[in-house]
């Protein structure tokens, strides 16, 4: 009986196999967002030594959406990012990028090349390299070993880097090594690296930590301008900042979704007030 079902499943006429689909050289060939969401997390669980960091987390991110994720410490926000970028493997559940890319079976570089970029909580730029070189490494070029030996930037590419440097306000520090930057500047440089990667999905972990109010406003502006072409997921503690950018907010608590909706709905939710906002 089971075999019969399996055969029927294979023979279904509405099913299209991956290898039959013609590859579009422009778009990431396997990324298919025709059903709306770009990221699917379903029943994802991760535990460390018995502690459940994620507990049957189910979350969908739409293509082009800007989503904020908030939650108290230990709610599983960073673990969720680790699962999406391949750093941590989930114990159970499925993680799909578009319809077809199974992220649980891909390595970190594969996931990055498929179009998921990540900014870390602690800004990590390459300290020995200049701002320009930091962006150059992030750029969406061939990243294999042998091509990198002979690769040289053409004028158009270095202009693009300069444009991004202008955007993140580091053009005057173009040749300075990353170690000389202040905390806020490192944050900006890392955001610039994300832009150079040109990913379809940006995961941004606490982008405004250590920034002044003015810089925060600029960041908010930048992130909202990115939404549309890219999907952006922001994890942030600063409620004021979240309020300034968020259209849709997801509240995580103890590894699963507690509430979801626009900022006002979430802020008035009784459960949310109890665990988080009420503190």
């Amino acid at each position, binding site marked *: 009986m089971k075999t019969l079902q399996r055969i029927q499943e294979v023979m279904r006429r509405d099913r299209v196999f991956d290898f039959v689909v013609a590859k579009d050289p422009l778009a990431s060939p396997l990324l298919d967002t025709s059903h709306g969401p770009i990221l699917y997390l379903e029943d994802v669980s991760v535990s460390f030594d018995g502690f459940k960091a994620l507990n049957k987390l189910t979350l969908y991110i739409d293509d082009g959406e800007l989503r904020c994720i908030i939650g108290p410490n230990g709610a599983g926000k960073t673990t969720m990012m680790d699962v999406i970028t391949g750093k941590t493997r989930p114990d159970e559940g499925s993680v799909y990028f578009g319809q077809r890319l199974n992220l649980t079976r891909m390595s970190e570089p594969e996931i990055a090349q498929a179009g998921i970029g990540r900014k*870390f909580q602690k800004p990590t730029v*390459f300290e020995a390299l200049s701002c320009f070189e930091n962006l150059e*490494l992030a750029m969406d070029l061939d990243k294999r*070993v042998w091509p*990198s*030996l002979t690769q040289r930037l053409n004028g158009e590419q270095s202009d693009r880097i300069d444009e991004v440097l202008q955007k993140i306000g580091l053009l005057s520090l173009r040749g300075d090594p990353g170690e000389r930057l202040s*905390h*806020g500047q490192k944050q900006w440089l890392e955001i610039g690296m994300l832009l150079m990667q040109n990913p379809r999905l940006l995961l941004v972990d606490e982008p405004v930590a250590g920034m002044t109010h003015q810089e925060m406003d600029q960041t908010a502006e930048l992130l909202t301008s990115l939404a549309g072409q890219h999907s952006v997921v922001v994890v942030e503690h600063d409620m004021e900042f979240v309020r300034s950018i968020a259209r849709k907010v997801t509240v995580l608590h103890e590894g699963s979704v507690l509430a979801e909706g626009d900022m006002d709905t979430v802020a008035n939710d009784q459960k949310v007030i109890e665990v988080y906002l009420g503190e």
Partner: protein
Amino acid sequence: MANNKVTDQKKAYQSKVMMLLKSDKGGSILIAFLLALAVVVPVCNLMVPESSALYMPTYIVVLLGKYLCFALLALALDLVWGYCGILSLGHAAFFALGGYAMGMYLMRQVGDRGVYGNPELPDFMVFLDWQALPWYWFGFDQFWFAMLMVVVVPGLLAYVFGWLAFRSRVTGVYLSIMTQALTYALLLAFFRNEMGFGGNNGLTDFKDILGFNLQEDLTRVMLFLATVVCLVLSYLACRYIVRSKMGRVVVAVRDAESRVRFLGYRVEHYKLWIFTFSAMLAGIAGALYVPQVGIINPGEFSPLNSIELVVWVALGGRGTLYGAIIGALVVNYAKTYFTGAFPEVWLFALGGLFVVVTLLLPKGIIGLIEKQSGRFSKKRKIKSKDEALPASESKQALQRNQT
């Protein structure tokens, strides 16, 4: 007007970047020095009469050649340690393997001039009562095959070892310990007579190389020149790698490995190729070393050698390429001097040196020189930078620096 300024600024930066890329003052000086040696040494050894004060005795030519082999080995280590952050404590193993490949060729060149006069077998095999040449000695009577093996054998070992280690993400001190174990295991293996590499005594009593007598001054000078050429070419090759995008990725791996992964680079592939290339350079250094000193034995695999090598690179200054070469030359000269003048002091001096370098000179001799000469030029740089920027912009930069 503003547009003009921006393009001017851009041009200034571009030329600065170009200069940064091209400016390798230390390396240029070093290469000039090596090329000068390549002229002075043959002239002073071969053309100047022995009675002259300028005459250079042959033992000094050999000694200098030995130092340059060590310098090449140090260069190889600096590429993996200084740039990629892989602290290999077993690099002498690749050096020794290259040396053994050369030694096998030289052994086969001896022919029937050995003590036992056997045309087929090297002396130690006759002594062990072996009847035929082991299969892995085949081909070593051909120079080209031996030279191929000089790079292939260390390269292959490094590739297999690196593939296993980097794929399972072994890093830091664990990797260092494993490389140390690797060289120790090879030391024990090569000590065994059954291995067929001359056991305890190793390979020695070489007669000639490519038909030239190894004892003659001219051959020794030629070997010295070959060493200079190999060192200069290797330096340029390393410099090319370091200046390419590959070099920048490798530096990024050293500083923030996981970040590089999230940018989409396969870190283990980069590490693997740098490690393999470095092992090949070490093999070449070993192959140049053996005909000059006239012997290769398992002692070259000793873990101590690898650790000494790390001291050379650390003392010279890692992550500069030329610093490693300077370190190797300085420490080896000191070793020759101390072991001659106060033989019992040398090991203490070496240990003390390592402590001093770690505590006081984290960037080695090069770091010290740069610090001294940097004080002046830094002041000038800051001044010129302020002038180059429009007032408002420099103010902004100042504000940014403060936050």
